[in-house]
């Protein structure tokens, strides 16, 4: 195998698919396989094994209470509140400013989280950032992402958290995902669609029902790179 990008090709593929690389090593390896066909093929081959490995676990009885609890939670989380679509109309953004221009505002509102997550064609990636006002975690598996937040403030009646996705330096587009947080400030929501390498996931506080363009500075900024 020939050296590439400072590493020996193939050296890390097995450890990567087993989840045994440290986060920084995994990030570096993702960057490597984006450019290396041989390693990408090796990862794909090994992933056939790791996808089958769960079957090697001895069967375990599922506690009956687990099913009951999951379904109770599902019934208490109507899809309409988890993935509700905002009005599809597109209007000229009234209050959108480039992210950089929000610098002062971000500090003023005490932005809770700014995190960056590497995205690759394979594998998964998770980053969690803790801050005094809360924490957020963006889990990416393949092109799909979940945003999990903790300790965000509950909003008063008539207000909601709204998720946006921004591509490059374009304006943030409404995802239609509106959510509230639990008494403990927690929520987990899927990011609609597939994220690309230049996406940024934003969360702002908006009037109930959502808005077609952000009217406040983001409280979460999750950049995908």
């Amino acid at each position, binding site marked *: 195998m020939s050296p590439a990008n400072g590493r020996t090709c*193939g*050296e*890390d*593929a*097995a*450890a990567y*698919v*087993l*989840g*045994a*690389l*440290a986060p920084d090593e995994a990030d570096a390896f993702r960057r490597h396989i984006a450019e290396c066909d041989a390693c990408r093929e090796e990862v794909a*081959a*090994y992933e*056939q*094994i*790791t*996808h*089958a*490995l*769960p*079957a*090697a*676990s*001895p*069967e*375990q*009885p*599922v*506690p*009956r*209470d*687990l*099913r009951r*609890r*999951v*379904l109770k*939670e*599902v*019934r208490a*989380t*109507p*899809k*309409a509140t*988890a*993935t509700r679509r905002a009005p599809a109309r597109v209007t000229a953004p009234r209050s959108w400013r480039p992210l950089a221009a929000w610098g002062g505002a971000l500090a003023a509102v005490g932005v809770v989280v700014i995190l960056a997550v590497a995205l690759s064609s394979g594998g*998964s990636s*998770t980053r969690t950032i803790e801050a005094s006002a809360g924490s957020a975690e963006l*889990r990416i*598996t*393949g*092109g*799909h992402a*979940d945003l999990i937040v903790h300790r965000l403030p509950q909003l008063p009646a008539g207000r909601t958290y709204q998720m946006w996705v921004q591509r490059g330096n374009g304006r943030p587009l409404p995802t239609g995902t509106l959510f509230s947080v639990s008494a403990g400030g927690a929520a*987990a*929501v*899927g*990011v*609609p*669609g597939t994220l690309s390498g230049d996406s940024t996931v934003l969360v702002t506080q908006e009037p109930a029902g959502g808005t077609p363009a952000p009217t406040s500075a983001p409280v979460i900024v999750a950049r995908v790179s």
Partner: protein
Amino acid sequence: MRFLRRPVDLRALADEELMELVDGGEVRAFEVIFDRHASAGYALAYRMCGRRALAEDIVQEAFLSLWRSGTNYDRARGSVRSWVLSAVHNRAVDALRRAGAKAGRDVSDEGIAERLRAPEATDVEVERREEARQIRGALDELPPDQRQVIELAYFGGLTHSQIADVLDLPPGTVKGRMRLGLTKMRSALGEAEKVAL
């Protein structure tokens, strides 16, 4: 989205069809998905964590994520089952790496555990059991030093550096054993597939 005007046996639908209904908020479709895959997810989580309470939390979180995400689960990268198991694995690794965070949470609930049998004893179930037998066989056939590093990494959530520390080996040796082991498993499972054909 489909509108169900009369009772439909949802258990006859494929996972992908069920996920369309799940995306439309159909709880009964989600129940079928849960019944099909919760057992595998729980078995994986329990093997990785060794604690029932934590395994339950992980499975619950994974399935709720599927409910909230709907059809945004990554179809291109595999089946619903793969998505669920991948979600369980990622969450279990996160939990294992949050050292000590869950200490003392487990309670023995052996007495109330109850096997939730899949409502359909289908060819799919038979096929899954055969797949499980083959993957366990391939793992068992590995030399112990290769099996050990694979199990510590995948089921134990340890990084190669941590495994190197535990086993007092150079990190390169650990990675080499992982590679050899996975290559042998791939070869063994490829042979098993040929025999099955």
